């Protein structure tokens, strides 16, 4: 059933003014996880980073796994949203804001994790290049300095990409609200009115942002991969790491987006907007990425196996047959064997099916990040330096709390911002379905020429 502009505005503003009991239970659960993480971090600060399981030679473990995982998840939003915007995919409209919000929050969380890892976070400003009394300067040759620039740029770009199309919706909330809420949204809307000039400027800006943000997103995860591949550690020093990480990031990002959408439609009663077609289309993308992930994993392992270099083979067999084999094969099951049949068979590519496949992919991709980091560090080139790593409760708690923090940020965001772009949904109601139209003749005789296909209901 075609909804009217009034219904759209009512439905999408409703979660801001009324929340269900399920919503508040979810907030409480996520908040509890976050509090547990804050307590664990406080204990770590008080006691020292020795409460972690990291040691020589495994200096990186859970935290870098989480860092790479969350930066990977951030590829869900901005990249997918930008591609769908540029290709004018009309089915994107209910999806884009959910996706863009994931990006901003997961980069924030990803950015916090290195701060935890440095042990003395109050000295984090030493990473910022500024003339100081220490007469030291960040080394621009270091991939960690590249991380700083790449993640800062991506966070700035993604926040802008999220905020700009939200301005008209802030104005819609402002016009619907009263009292203090009205005052807050008045500030957030920046005095947006909705004049043709403002719409035109906004659309151009979104177009530029979509073009710019795609290469930034690709560069960010490539640079994260270079944190590993620029070092001489077995199985890390590989030129395939850049595209492998980018593909993995998009893979995990799409999975996180599907999972989030499935939860949101229930929590915020958005069933009329987040429809089976959105899950089916994203499910197809997830299937493609699952196949691509398998291709990259196979290519990476095959190259190592064929080279038969002893240090690399030590890591290789540790992953596949020995200590890490249960995790490795769980990863393969979660990322390939479970999702591919679910997503390839149309009958199974339902909302529940895609959500299950996405859940396994999120688990599998976390394991993939762990299996990149730990087995290689445990088995470096010289066997006398080999070591083992076991996470402690502090690391487990911090990891769990990062999920809680993400959920809490997302839930609170959905309380303040319409999770589906109201104005973009209204554009979809226009007779030409929101496709660009051009005017022929003078302004008094508007001959509208459609660019692109007619929506089915109009064509009929």
């Amino acid at each position, binding site marked *: 059933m075609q909804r009217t502009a009034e219904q759209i505005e009512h439905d999408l503003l409703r979660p801001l003014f009324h929340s269900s009991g399920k919503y508040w239970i979810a907030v409480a659960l996520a908040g509890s996880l976050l509090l547990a993480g804050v307590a664990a971090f406080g204990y770590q600060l008080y006691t020292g980073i020795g409460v972690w399981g990291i040691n020589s030679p495994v200096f990186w473990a859970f935290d870098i796994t989480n860092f790479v995982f969350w930066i990977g998840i951030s590829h869900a939003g901005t990249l997918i949203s930008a591609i769908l915007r540029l290709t004018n995919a009309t089915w994107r409209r209910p999806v884009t804001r959910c996706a863009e919000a994931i990006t901003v929050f997961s980069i924030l969380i990803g950015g916090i994790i290195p701060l935890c890892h440095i042990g003395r976070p109050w000295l984090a400003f030493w990473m910022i290049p500024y003339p100081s009394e220490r007469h030291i300067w960040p080394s621009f040759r270091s991939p960690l300095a590249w991380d700083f620039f790449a993640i800062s740029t991506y966070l700035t770009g993604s926040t802008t990409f999220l905020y700009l199309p939200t301005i008209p919706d802030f104005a819609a909330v402002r*016009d619907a609200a009263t009292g203090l809420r009205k005052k807050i949204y008045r500030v957030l809307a920046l005095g*947006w009115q909705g004049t043709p000039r403002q719409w035109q400027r906004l659309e151009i800006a979104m177009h530029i942002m979509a073009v710019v943000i795609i290469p930034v997103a690709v560069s960010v995860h490539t640079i994260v991969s270079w944190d590993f591949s620029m070092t001489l550690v077995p199985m890390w020093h590989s030129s395939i790491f850049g595209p492998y990480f980018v593909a993995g990031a998009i893979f995990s990002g799409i999975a996180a987006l599907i999972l989030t959408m499935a939860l949101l439609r229930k929590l915020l009663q958005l069933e009329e907007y987040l429809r089976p077609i959105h899950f089916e289309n994203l499910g197809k993308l997830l299937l493609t990425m699952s196949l691509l992930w398998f291709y990259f994993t196979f290519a990476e392992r095959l190259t190592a196996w064929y080279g038969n270099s002893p240090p690399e083979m030590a890591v290789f067999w540790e992953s596949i047959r020995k200590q890490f084999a249960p995790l490795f094969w769980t990863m393969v099951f979660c990322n390939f064997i479970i999702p591919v049949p679910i997503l390839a068979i149309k009958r199974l590519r339902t909302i529940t099916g895609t959500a299950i496949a996405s859940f396994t992919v999120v688990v599998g991709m976390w394991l993939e990040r762990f299996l990149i980091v730990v087995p290689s560090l445990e088995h470096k080139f010289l066997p006398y330096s080999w070591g083992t790593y076991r996470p402690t409760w502090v690391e487990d708690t911090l990891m769990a709390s990062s999920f809680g923090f993400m959920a809490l940020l997302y839930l609170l965001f959905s309380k303040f911002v319409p999770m589906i772009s109201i104005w973009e949904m*209204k554009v979809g109601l226009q007779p030409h379905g929101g496709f660009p139209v051009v005017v022929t003749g003078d*302004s008094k005789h508007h001959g509208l020429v459609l660019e692109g296909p007619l929506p089915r209901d109009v064509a009929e």
Partner: protein
Amino acid sequence: MKALYGLYADPEAAQRAVDSLRAASSELKFDARQILIVSGEPHEGYEFTDSHTTASPYRWAVLGAVVGGTVGYLLTTLSQKSYPLPTGGMSLTPAWTNGIIVYEMIMLGAILTTLVVLLIGAGLPNFKGVITDPEIGTGKILVGVVDPPENSQPELERRLRQAGASQVKQSSAS
């Protein structure tokens, strides 16, 4: 700031109203720039929306990218020369790795410039008050005249209704 406006259910009617108001502007002694159009979503393909078309934001974004790249280049090379690290005979200012910083700064420059150009071009922020109507949320388009001359109001109201306004109202900025 006050406005007399009509609310239109479709963009064709809004376009008729805009055309009618423009035609009457000299006779009723108001500037065509006083004509106000407000909608809850963009309407592409109509003269009243496309009259603002300009390519300048793209040029500004490119300029921002150039500035960002230059800042990145200067940041890396000047600091590497000012704070030299032992490089074992390798280049003090390596183009390969500096290129990564320059690339990110190019993108950051383009992003920030796009944001600033949007805000300036769209007249944001504007906290002086806006003229709006609850009906805009239901899909209506507001077309009217800001601060219309007192004696012209009956004629303006007639023209707004003739173009197909479902309602004609008078409102102040809030």
